[in-house]
């Protein structure tokens, strides 16, 4: 037969529109386009194998992201092995006033800051702040509790700001302290 779609074509019609999202997240996670491409291909091969378990009408994008992190875990065992046992040491959670961020943020500066984030934090901030998944969806995708999602997210955002701080201005501390007290 010619016209009718094959199963592969059905799968492609449902899954390939999300390739862009999968690839850019893989690229953000691995900071490497070639590895991101391999990982994306692998995600689609595995998604195809389990396509029979996918329920039409459910969230295909979330399903693919879940597979992305499964495959990432498989590919680079070390990726998540760098467990943040000292997560608490990394940043104090007490509220602290931060110096301002640079006036202009270049693409390179932002990518550099993302690159310096611990991987677990990078995953959360990419899923929540870029791909706009809910906390619940992020928790399901990464298989971690909601509370962990939220604390990692706020730390990730703070670490990013720290990397992008305006070093010139941070010397003018006196200007800020007590500034609101007037």
């Amino acid at each position: 037969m010619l016209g009718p779609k094959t199963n592969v074509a059905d799968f492609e019609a449902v899954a390939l529109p999300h390739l862009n999202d999968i690839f850019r997240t893989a690229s953000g996670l691995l900071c490497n386009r070639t590895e991101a491409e391999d990982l994306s291909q692998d995600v689609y091969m595995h998604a195809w194998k389990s396509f029979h378990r996918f329920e039409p009408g459910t969230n295909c994008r979330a399903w693919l992201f879940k597979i992305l992190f499964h495959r990432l875990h498989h590919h680079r065992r070390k990726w998540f092995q760098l467990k943040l046992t000292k997560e608490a040491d990394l940043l104090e959670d007490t509220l602290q006033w931060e110096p301002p961020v640079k006036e202009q943020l270049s693409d390179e500066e932002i990518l550099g800051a993302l690159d310096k984030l611990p991987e677990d934090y990078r995953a959360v901030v990419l899923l929540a702040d870029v791909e706009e998944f809910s906390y619940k969806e992020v928790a399901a995708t990464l298989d971690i509790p909601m509370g962990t999602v939220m604390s990692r997210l706020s730390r990730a955002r703070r670490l990013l700001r720290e990397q992008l701080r305006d070093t010139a201005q941070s010397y003018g501390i006196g200007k800020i302290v007590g500034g609101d007290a007037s």
Partner: protein
Amino acid sequence: MNVVKFPGNQQCVKVYGYLDSYLSNELLVETTHDVLRHLDSCTECRQALADRQKVRDGLRRVVLAETLPIGLETRISAKLREQTGTNIRRAWFFTPWILAAACLMLTVAGSSMIHRQKAMAASQILALGLGDHIICAMGGHYPPTPPDMATVADEDNMGAKYALLVPAALKQLSQFQLVEGHRCHVGGRTYPHVILRQGDMLISLSLVERKGGEAFPQGLWNGATKIDGQNVFQGHQENYSVAGFATAKHFVFVSSALDEQTNFDLARRMVPATTEILRPIEASLRKPVTMVLAWLASGSFQPEAVSHR
């Protein structure tokens, strides 16, 4: 760490802790009002909020600007088909077509160097057409005898609107015979697809709708050749050649294993007729349906059975 001490104001301490949640729209209405009231009067918290927004926006901007590697969709399509054995029926040739599709990396004259990564490279677009040719036509996705025109015009195949491409192709490229006219699905896109042959040489005339923002590179040194006011791009990959151009809503491709110049000449001959046929389709007129019906009724089309030489 270079952290600044918190200002004494208790309102600041409270609001400062809410800024991220405020940005994400997670606060109760009442708390939002409190935050807004404080922001009105506090420069420091306003600055802190602006910083958070700036970093989030910047991150989105940078990550969302990441573009797909050239031909990745096609490579995935080829791998999927390789895994499932789809399309490997009746292959006429022992061409390692899967391999060709899997390494689809086109060489295109000129353009790429002057275009930044964010602009869609010509090769990326040409890869769509060549990918369809390799996966569908070279994959043997067609019947042993050519369909009659009514079958081609069937909505399950090319559909009446696009079926006019078949007589146009047979007229312009008169040395070729019809193999198949259908719509196929590769890489998540649908291609109205005419396959012709001369002996064992297959050529594809295929088209695909442009998605938002997809366009060939513009500008003087884009590497294209002007034919009938159209920029026609060409490229090759191993043994395959492809040439393509854009109409208002479609990319049109001619692909084959002919040398690049010969393949390009075939595309050149298809430019005026294809543009003409697509114009009313793209303007969503109903005219082509009646045209094809009239043409069918005239009985000027006699399908020939494919004969191997």
